[in-house]
């Protein structure tokens, strides 16, 4: 296994989860796109903010 980009893996994970939830929660295609995009953006934004918040703390 060569991929070590944690951010990329997190985005990939968020994409799959957002896709499935958007399809489950909405029936209309536009609504699915909107919900999926908002969920994906939310996942990435929260992860990014959390990453910076815990940055000063040692492992």
């Amino acid at each position, binding site marked *: *296994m060569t*991929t*070590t980009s*944690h951010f990329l*893996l997190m985005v*990939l*994970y968020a994409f*799959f*989860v957002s*896709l*499935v939830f958007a*399809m*489950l929660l*909405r*029936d*209309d*295609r536009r*609504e699915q796109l909107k919900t999926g995009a908002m969920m994906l953006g939310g996942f990435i934004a929260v992860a990014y903010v959390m990453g910076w918040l815990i940055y000063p703390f040692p492992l």
Partner: protein
Amino acid sequence: MASKSTAAERAPAAAEPGRLALVCILSWLVPGAGHLLQGRRDKGLVFLIALPLMFAVGLWLDGRLFPLEWSDPLVFLGAIANRGIGAPYILARLMEAGAGTVTAVSYEYGNTFLMTAGLLNFLVVLDAFDIAMGRKPAKPAAQR
């Protein structure tokens, strides 16, 4: 704003328990098959592609398919989640994949992908069950 379906638009409830069981088992075994069987083509295809792909990414990331061990509750729950994906799990077991490499940097990511794919498929099975019960429209307005 998505409009709510009226009772007249909803699919008739699946009266036969046999058909309900078939939808649930098929939906578990092949992700999205329960939706395809009930005419939800778009959703079925997305689940059919996305969930096995997510499971495959988990294997690629050196994730582990956990054994059913009663002595360790967390491993047991992980094993249940792994089995949620159905046929891809069986195939992976037959191919002796999913041994997991604990020392790999992506090991925990792989586990997360594998377990989440299974858990999402459990939700997909429940959604297919709801459609079969007539709690959701059999087809979205665009496909009617």
